[in-house]
């Protein structure tokens, strides 16, 4: 579904070139929930932006649904959820969800249908007519996810969507995201810097490390697809979390010690 092979990306900055991604190769299969985890500067967000055609790699090949990322972007193959909800303050919740639909030229009735469906999906019923400032941070982020789901993209790219939320809200939204993933059967790429979040959500965990940004480990999770928060106390969960931690440590040794 998404294939990244031998991608290098160098940013030219005033302090000289920065190697943001080095020899990055990985695959995402249909229906996967893939997490990218690593410390800041490891290129996990950059990799997601490469897949979304928001950055162009210096070298290497990326395909999304057998297209180049830019073709996939133009064909509206993915929905992207940013760190900040980025809702338009002058639009209501449903107005915000309709925005991409308006740009994509859906008919009025279709817009209504789809908006209702995704509002159900993220459980924001009753808040359709509220403005963003009337919502909590968690609800804003749910509205933002609904907006990314409203059109027919089968890939959902999420860049630390819950990074700014407290742990209690984050746990709840993680559970809801898993439900949503099960119901919609989308393919999800998820950037995070939280080990429990990555292990809890993913079928595949991509561990990355900085300077230069590269992949140190790819873990196929043996956890069942259907899971709840209690799974975090199971032995498998702890074992995977341990392996992630080791992957992160392995990436660090060279320049920390």
């Amino acid at each position: 579904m998404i294939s990244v092979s031998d991608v290098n990306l160098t940013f030219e900055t005033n302090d000289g070139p920065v190697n943001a991604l080095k020899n990055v190769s990985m695959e995402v299969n249909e229906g996967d929930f893939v997490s990218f985890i690593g410390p800041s500067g490891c290129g996990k967000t950059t990799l997601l932006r490469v897949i979304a055609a928001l950055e162009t790699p210096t070298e290497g090949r990326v395909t999304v649904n057998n297209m180049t990322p830019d073709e996939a972007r133009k064909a509206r193959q993915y929905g992207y959820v940013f760190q900040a909800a980025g809702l338009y303050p002058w639009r209501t919740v449903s107005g915000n969800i309709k925005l991409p639909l308006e740009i994509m030229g859906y008919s009025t009735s279709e817009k209504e249908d789809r908006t209702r469906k995704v509002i159900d999906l993220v459980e924001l019923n009753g808040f359709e007519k509220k403005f963003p400032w009337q919502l909590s941070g968690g609800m804003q982020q749910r509205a933002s996810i609904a907006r990314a789901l409203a059109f027919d993209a089968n890939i959902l790219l999420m860049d630390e969507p819950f990074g700014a939320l407290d742990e209690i809200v984050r746990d709840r939204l993680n559970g809801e995201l898993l439900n949503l993933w099960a119901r919609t059967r989308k393919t999800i790429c998820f950037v995070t810097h939280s080990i429990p979040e990555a292990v809890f959500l993913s079928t595949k965990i991509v561990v990355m490390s900085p300077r230069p940004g590269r992949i140190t480990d790819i873990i196929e999770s043996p956890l069942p697809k259907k899971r709840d928060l209690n799974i975090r106390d199971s032995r498998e969960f702890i074992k995977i979390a341990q392996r992630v931690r080791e992957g992160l440590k392995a990436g660090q040794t060279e320049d920390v010690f």
Partner: protein
Amino acid sequence: MKTSYLANKFIPVSTIVILIGLFWYLVAVPMNSDKVSRQFKNLTASEHILKCWSLKKPKLPTPHQIITEMVNTTFFKKISSKRSLVYHGWITLQATLAGFFLGTLLGILLALGIVHNRAMDLSVMPWVIASQTIPILAIAPMIIVVMNSVGVTGLLPKAIISMYLSFFPVVVGMVKGLRSPDQIQLDQMRTWSASSREILWYLRFPSSLPFLFASLKVGVAASLVGAIVGELPSGAIAGLGARMLAGTYYGQTIMIWSALFAAAFLAAFLVFTIDFLQKITLKRMAIIR
């Protein structure tokens, strides 16, 4: 709510007004003293002061003289009369609004060009700034004369001068406003593969409205100044500027001051109107609550 309006607005503002008024009457005495001494002999001190406040052609007219003149020329003259302030005010207002409209249009168009076109971004702004360093008093007569020579007279030359002054704040504000969406919002539009026209309509333009309104308030006041300045060198016989000029010809200081006050009230009215529109619009857009 009501007490806070009293405490926050009414009391401080009226205190300052009263202080200025007192100071005014105080200064009017030495300013007009010479003239009173020349015209009247053997006055007691209090009679002398009262005369200083009620001369027909004083150096500095007092507030009540100006207000009386304004009330007379506003309410007790036919609107079509050449002595009516309403008549002159209306002439100036027309030029102001025409110039304000043209200036806003020009300002928005230039800002759109600057934001969307790299060549314009690099080349236009210095000229826009240079245009404002030229004193308007120097350029206004030239505009009037040049346009007169091609047969354009009346409202349009004045409106052009108004436009010249009012487009500037609009360009500066709108460039800032159209660029105010952050990178995340622009990236988000890109992920929906929105065209730059859609980005403009759905994102840049609504984001720029608070900036636009702030600019419009500055722009409308500048427009009025432009219209009045445009009336000074043109030998115009109508308009608040012409009224001020006529006042200086005939030593009618009260007439000058009442035209000046009329211009100030007009400016305040225009600015408050835009302020009101701003509040309604932004409230409706939930940008302010």
